[in-house]
């Protein structure tokens, strides 16, 4: 009886070990690897803004493990270029730091088959605001600024005013022309 019990116990242990070996281990996907690294590198105070931004770019592209590894290297290099956390605005950092970080961002975009463009903000709210665009070929896949939107109207009233002034000039020139003709 004892022998039977010990044989059965040994078999159960063996089955358990084999089951653990063949059980599927859920491996992280390349995109998950990138986000995991981002969580490690981005200060906690900024993650609520930057993680969704990064995920919303990644969900529009295919990423393999080689590309993910290269992008992770860019992220680590960008982090190394910034000596300390000075704030969440680009203008808080030196020109050298900005240049180094942007170079890594552009390189990461190239790895993923994307191009990016950073321009002074069209409607700056704060000093040094920038607009950040990402393209996949000709197609824009991201238009990022962190600002509160202008939501009063979609019509540009400055241009309407310019147009109205031009009409007034045209009317004035027409009247003047008529007077000239009349005086002859």
């Amino acid at each position, binding site marked *: 009886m004892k022998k039977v019990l010990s044989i059965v116990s040994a078999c159960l242990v063996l089955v358990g070990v084999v089951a653990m070996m063949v059980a599927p281990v859920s491996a992280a996907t390349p995109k998950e690897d990138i986000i995991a690294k981002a969580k490690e590198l981005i200060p906690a105070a900024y993650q609520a803004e930057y993680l969704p931004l990064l995920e919303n770019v990644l969900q529009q592209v295919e990423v393999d493990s080689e590309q993910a590894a290269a992008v992770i290297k860019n992220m680590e290099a960008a982090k190394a270029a910034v000596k300390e956390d000075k704030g969440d605005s680009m203008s808080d950092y030196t020109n050298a730091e900005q240049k180094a970080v942007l170079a890594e961002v552009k390189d990461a975009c190239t790895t993923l088959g994307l191009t990016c463009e950073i321009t002074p903000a069209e409607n700056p709210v704060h000093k040094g605001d920038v607009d950040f665009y990402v393209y996949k070929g000709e197609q824009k896949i*991201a238009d*990022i600024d962190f600002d*509160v939107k202008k939501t009063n109207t979609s019509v540009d009233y400055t241009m309407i005013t310019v147009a109205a002034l031009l009409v007034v000039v045209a009317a004035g020139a027409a009247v003047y022309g008529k007077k000239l003709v009349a005086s002859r």
Partner: protein
Amino acid sequence: MLLPHFLTICALLCASVVLFQTVIAESTYYQLITGMAGGSSSNNTVTQEEGHIPPIFYGEQWATLNVDGWEERDIPVFFGDENALLRKGAGMRFNSRFCGQGGRTVLSAHVTAHFYELETTKIGTHITMDTKYGKYVYEVVDTLIFHYQDNSALSPKEDEGETLFLYTCYPRKNGYQFKKQRLALICRKIEGKEWKTYG
């Protein structure tokens, strides 16, 4: 002698160009006619990962918004909130979450158009987002008035859970004037499937 006539013609031509570029070319009807309207190109295809929402491309209409009691119905919701998208409907802030991802979904729209009724919406009102991957229902739990330079108002608060944040210019009685304030409705999710994120 010919100068006044020449000036008249030039000024009228310039005015026409400015008006066309500013108003007509930006109008939804013109864009529909010329095929400029619409979301992203269909050339972009990405595999949907298990447990994740299907890929949504920048500029794409991914949901329709309805608020109980509003006259405005079926407001299109676009991914992105650049000016061209806000002219067509509500825009989703790029660095916010989609419905079902457990975070804050930030939408903005013009007070002179789709979000005119935001100001009179009461606490307890239900809001429905019919997205391309399922229906979500939210309840208004709070309102917030903030300055247009206060970006931090758009960021989710800790332990906020899954919320919908709708904002527009305030107060609406000032019409088309530039406004320094924004009014937001903060809405808690009461129905809708949960999806994974990469983090």
